[in-house]
């Protein structure tokens, strides 16, 4: 909007935005790439090298003399030094002091008159004119390069063995009702606060704005006591899905009421007045006119609340149990950080499963999210 769009300064703008975008996306990209890598490669090389071959130094011990076969008057021991099919041998050696003394394909004289050849594909041959002896097999040092390997094995493992699959269902169980219930309750309250006349209305609005920022920490201990009390009184468990749905409903209500009230208050007054002249009651007006018109605001809040309940750790840790059919994804991920701290193939794959649903929601419904953010922050000045 400011002139001079072709000036060299524009290149600086392009470059700095590119740099910032890279800083903001590389962490997530690293996680995704790592979660798809073979776990042995992941453990020994950085994800930024994922596309280049990794080299590894290894040692192989050939079988003892018992394995030799006689072929054309010569005695031969053969096989392959690699434990899997992938990779090429670039160099080999016969002593630990010089593990890469020879190139693949070369022939080496061994101590007792035998000859050793190691090919690029890893196959080796020890050939001798006389029958070989000795209880120990020949050691062969080699350097092999392994091509990059990408696999979904990590995902298979965490979904089944690590309980991420079960937790995924648990998170859905928490998030869906916790999103729908507050919308319904808040919509009616927001309409009352926006368009109905009654004493104490502006005080109630102020209370809602105040409650927007009450820290969750204030609610935890009293509600824990309350839940334990109610659970003990009725003889039911204190930590149930019902309990966490209601807790998320309570905590989400201030934002829901605030967002929806602001939106509804902005709707044109004439619509409601003409309906009222036609004899419609407030209930009719709300259900038939306001609710459909408020869809954008409802969608904005729904996205917020879904992201918040799906990503929540604190409320779930306090109000939901830790059994296999109750532990949510975030809780499971924290547990894995403790128990499998060094197993990055498990952590990266698990983390990616926990963030994939929010990311899909984010990319498909970003428009509503932005609108909600703009409406939800108390305007200043």
């Amino acid at each position, binding site marked *: 909007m400011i002139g001079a*769009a072709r000036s060299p300064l524009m290149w600086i703008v392009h470059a700095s935005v590119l740099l910032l975008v890279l800083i903001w996306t590389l962490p997530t990209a690293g996680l995704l790439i790592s979660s798809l890598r073979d776990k042995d490669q992941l453990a020994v090389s950085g994800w930024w090298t994922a596309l280049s071959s990794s080299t590894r130094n290894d040692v192989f011990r050939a079988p003892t003399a018992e394995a030799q076969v006689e072929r054309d008057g010569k005695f031969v021991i053969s096989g392959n030094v690699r434990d899997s099919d992938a990779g090429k041998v670039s160099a080999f050696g016969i002593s630990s002091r010089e593990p890469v003394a020879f190139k693949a394909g070369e022939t080496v004289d061994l101590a007792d008159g035998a000859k050793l050849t190691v090919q690029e594909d890893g196959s080796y041959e020890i050939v001798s004119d006389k029958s070989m002896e000795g209880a120990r097999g020949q050691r062969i040092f080699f350097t092999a390069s392994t091509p990059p390997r990408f696999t979904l094995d990590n995902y298979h493992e965490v979904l089944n063995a690590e309980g991420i699959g079960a937790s995924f269902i648990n998170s859905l169980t928490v998030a869906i009702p916790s999103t729908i219930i507050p919308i319904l309750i808040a919509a009616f309250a927001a309409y009352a606060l926006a368009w109905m006349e009654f004493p104490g209305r502006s005080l109630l609005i102020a209370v809602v704005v*105040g409650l927007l920022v009450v*820290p969750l920490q204030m609610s935890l201990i009293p509600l824990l006591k309350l839940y334990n009390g109610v659970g003990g009184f009725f003889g039911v468990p204190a930590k149930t899905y019902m309990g966490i749905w209601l*807790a998320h409903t309570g905590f989400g209500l201030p934002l829901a009421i605030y967002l929806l009230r602001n939106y509804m208050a902005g709707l044109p007054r004439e619509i409601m007045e003409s309906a009222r002249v036609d004899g419609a009651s407030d209930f009719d007006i709300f259900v038939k006119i306001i609710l459909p018109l408020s869809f954008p605001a409802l969608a904005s809040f729904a996205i917020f609340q879904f992201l918040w309940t799906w990503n929540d750790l604190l409320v779930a840790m306090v109000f939901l149990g830790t059994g296999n059919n109750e532990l949510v994804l975030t809780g499971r991920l924290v547990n894995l950080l403790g128990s499998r701290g060094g197993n990055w193939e498990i952590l990266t794959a698990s983390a990616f499963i926990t963030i994939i649903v929010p990311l899909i929601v984010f990319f498909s419904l970003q428009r509503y999210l932005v609108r909600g953010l703009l409406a939800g922050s108390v305007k200043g000045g």
Partner: protein
Amino acid sequence: MQQLIYAILTMAAGVLACVAYFFGTNWVLDQIFPSKGRSGAQASKNLRITNAIRPWLFLGPALFALTIYLIYPVIESVWLAFHDRSGQNFVGVSNFVWMVNDGEFRQSIFNNFLWLLVVPAAATFFGLIIAALTDRIWWGNIAKTLIFMPMAISFVGASVIWKFIYDYRAEGSEQIGLLNGIVVALGGSPEAWITIPFWNNFFLMVILIWIQTGFAMVILSAALRGIPEETLEAAVIDGANGLQIFFKIMIPQIWGTIAVVWTTITILVLKVFDIVLAMTNGQWQSQVLANLMFDWMFRGGGDFGRGAAIAVVIMVLVVPIMIWNIRNARKEMGGH
């Protein structure tokens, strides 16, 4: 799967119950005080009564939930803060005396202030820079989407992402953490970043800045676009350059929005919990108030008195912003 079906059925039942409540109570109200088909005086009297009652029917469930889940707990927490670990016996201010003398609490307060100084400032700064830069290039919206993306990621997920970046391998072996990879490539020696006292706070703050910059960017970008064109054109005619326009014309016009972004992130920072729990759990002197509070809630069977006292401290820090918000909201409504 079974529990998901159970959840959906319960949800359907809950939604039906809500609908039944709203529909039912309104129907009952209209039956008791009918205004249609009555004579003038009777109808207008009934209409007055229903108009007085109906708002409370609409508000009922919301007020009930707000009271149980937010208003009552605030009062109860304050009450508990002056009682012992079981919440039975009044102990005066001894929880707060303990707090002041507790090294871990003082560490948490110190760290929280560090967070408060750095995170809102950094996130707002980056958000503003990015908003201003992306407005001028054709692929600005793509850039914004990518920078906004971390907003959707949970704090725990973000912690795993960054813990991987900070990962440490002993010197000599190949680094798999990006930060140590860069440090080693530049000739430095690798460090276990999150275990270095004091500085580890900043490595944790990076995570929250990474998440919150997108929020600041979205809000500030909208504010920048809302600046009237005429003021910018006038500045251009007067010969102001790009930087002058940005700092002298644009920034002063969006101070209010900057303050909103700043305070919103400040409140988030006061409640930061998941990141510290997942990254260090308060080890290596990285404790913060919210995590300390969670700790005391369950430590040794749970000390509700001390936990509540820490929660009250967080609340006290939030109160000024709360009052400021309420005043702004009232001012705005007064203008309508």
